[in-house]
């Protein structure tokens, strides 16, 4: 009897222990979605992080842009623009453009900012109005807008009563992750282009050619030791070993290229391991068959063995992509943490993870945006993992 009770207690304890992991996963998901889901929208993905200040020359007296449908905010039929008071993601009061008529004189203008003079610029929904230079009905030039601490209604009535608008100073929408997405793609491509051939070739050598010599054991151990190195140490390695390499390409600071090179080394063991696991499953009889038909060893590898192992290589690639998206510590050292809206190969930049780090380590952590990006990262990584699982299932069926 007491044994029975004891057994029951022990079993219940294991149920509780497993319950903890369910609880943790649930807590992570609930937290991220409750904080970040409302921030998650298409604008977040297509917008730049930093908002741009633009100054456009208008010089127009307006026209008649009456519209039939209702628009959000206060609409000025003379200028074809609707404005609304709003609060931006930095918690500042702004005057937001909620609608702009396609033929409005404020829609397309020539830029008069220093630097890109006479470039055509446009005003879009979601941009914020800082200042509008007007000439009043008495012919006096003055201005109206947010810098005068006016609200949307005042601005609309001012421009409606004005003689003409001479220029308009506005801000594009910021707070988006477009540049980080591009940087992440850069990083995935660079690291895979380098790591894939090296990793696959090493796996082929170690599985197909290598005898049990001391040298080969050493080679294997060398690659496997890479798995145990913490990623932050890879960052140190990147700036000491690989930075000179990027200097050959003209890099002067840490750069996306350096991050990519560093990532490629981090990925090596992953790619090698999954390729080798696939090579192991390829039946020896296939190799023997090919060799006995007169094919050489390299022909056998390229035409018989590798096509059978392609699933394993694909698995390695998918796992690598997940790793690149999630990596942060190594990249803080090799790519910097400055969010760069025009990422180039030799410029600094941030991936999605680094972007989170960049504004979570600041004074005022922005949990909403961090959670929204975390959701994106999580979804990508989970989808990749499910594909890997599906491949593994199909793969084992092939030779079973």
């Amino acid at each position, binding site marked *: 009897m007491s044994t029975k009770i004891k057994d029951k207690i022990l079993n219940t304890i294991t149920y509780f222990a497993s319950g903890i992991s369910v609880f943790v996963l649930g807590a992570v998901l609930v937290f991220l979605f409750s904080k970040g889901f409302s921030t998650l929208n298409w604008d977040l993905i297509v917008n730049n992080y930093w908002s741009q200040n633009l100054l456009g020359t208008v010089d127009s007296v307006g026209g008649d842009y009456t519209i039939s449908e209702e628009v959000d905010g206060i609409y000025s039929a003379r200028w074809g623009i609707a404005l609304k008071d709003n609060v931006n993601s930095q918690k500042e009061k702004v005057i937001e453009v909620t609608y702009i008529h396609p033929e409005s004189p404020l829609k397309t203008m020539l830029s008069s900012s220093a630097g890109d003079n006479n470039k055509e610029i446009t005003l879009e929904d979601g941009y914020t109005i800082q200042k509008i230079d007007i000439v009043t009905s008495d012919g006096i030039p003055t201005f109206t807008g947010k810098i005068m601490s006016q609200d949307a209604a005042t601005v609309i009535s001012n421009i409606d009563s004005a003689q003409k608008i001479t220029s308009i100073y506005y801000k594009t929408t910021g707070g988006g992750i477009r540049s980080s997405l591009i940087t992440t793609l850069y990083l995935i491509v660079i690291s895979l282009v380098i790591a894939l051939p090296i990793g696959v070739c090493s796996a082929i050598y170690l599985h197909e050619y290598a005898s049990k010599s001391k040298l080969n054991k050493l080679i294997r151990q060398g690659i496997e030791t890479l798995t*145990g190195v913490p990623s932050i140490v890879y960052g140190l390695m990147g700036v000491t070993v690989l930075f000179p390499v990027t200097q050959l390409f003209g890099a002067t600071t840490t750069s996306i290229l350096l991050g990519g090179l560093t990532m490629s080394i981090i990925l090596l063991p992953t790619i090698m391991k999954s390729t080798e696991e696939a090579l192991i499953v390829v039946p020896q009889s296939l190799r023997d068959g090919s060799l006995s038909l007169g094919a050489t060893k390299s022909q056998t590898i390229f035409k018989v063995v590798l096509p059978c192992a392609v699933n394993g290589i694909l698995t390695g690639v998918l796992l690598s992509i997940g790793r690149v998206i*999630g990596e*942060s510590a190594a990249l803080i050292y090799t790519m910097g943490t400055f969010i760069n809206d025009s990422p180039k190969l030799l410029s600094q930049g941030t991936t999605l*993870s680094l972007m989170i780090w960049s504004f979570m380590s600041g004074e005022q952590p922005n949990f909403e945006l961090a959670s929204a990006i975390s959701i994106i990262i999580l979804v990508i*990584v989970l989808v990749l993992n499910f594909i890997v699982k599906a491949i593994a299932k199909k793969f084992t069926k092939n030779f079973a």
Partner: protein
Amino acid sequence: MQVNKKYIKKNKTIDSIYKYFFMAMAILASSFIVLLVLFVFTKGISPFLSGYEYGQVNFFDFLFGLTYRQDKGIYGVGFIIINTFISAFAALIISFPISVLTALFIVKIAPKNLSKVMQTIVELLASIPSIVYGVFAGGVITGIVKDLALLFGVSTAGGSSLLAVVILLAIMIFPTITSLSISAIQAVDKDLEQASLALGATKTQTNFKIVLIAAKSGIFAGAILGIGRAFGEATAVAMVAGNKLFGPTFNPFDITRTLTTTMLAGLKETSGLDYDIRFSVGLVLMVVIFVSNYILNLVKKKVGNM
């Protein structure tokens, strides 16, 4: 006949070219670890050598110092090493029993469907990147710690504390230990179990007294891997550690500082002593991981033979 020989010879040359090409790639891949150790060592040791351009640092002050202040140029990592050990082992102590019991549940106790679901959950937890755990820790774990602190009537720095680090690390090393324990438990010889059952032990007694003991070597390997991850975890920990300037920290509600957070704290310049000393800290981190791995592996051998 002549043509055929030529053909064979050509193929043989191509074949050996490929072989040496593959070999070169493998050697290249394995040389990275050598480069890594060599370069980080050289750079990490440089501040302690005489003639260092930003002023030589005393090696013993560095290794045993109990204050780390970038602003004053005092670099002592002695207390940071202790802090790192405290947080990593505390995380292991919390995570280890939960992981092993979960693994046992998945392999032996749970009904088949539940076992599959649980395995997927462990895999999901393993695939969450550390930065996401960091966001979670910053938003939820610090909140829990704050509430706990209120309960005990102590103050915390917004929840950033040793306790938060320990909870975070415990969560992060859980999937590692669990998945290795699962493989270890699955590998236990069926004969052993059946012998135990035949001798009249119940299923549960067999699970706890035979299976777990037989799998201890593999489970221990999981613990070693887990503690390695706890030592090396950087960004997530840095979000909740708080970076104390002196130490060591024993109070769970006080802020702490680990080797990895030190390497990340206030990283701005890319030259100067403040930058170079991070390599020395990185070197210490590598030594800490290497030494603890070595010792734990010795222990594992002892445990495995018991």
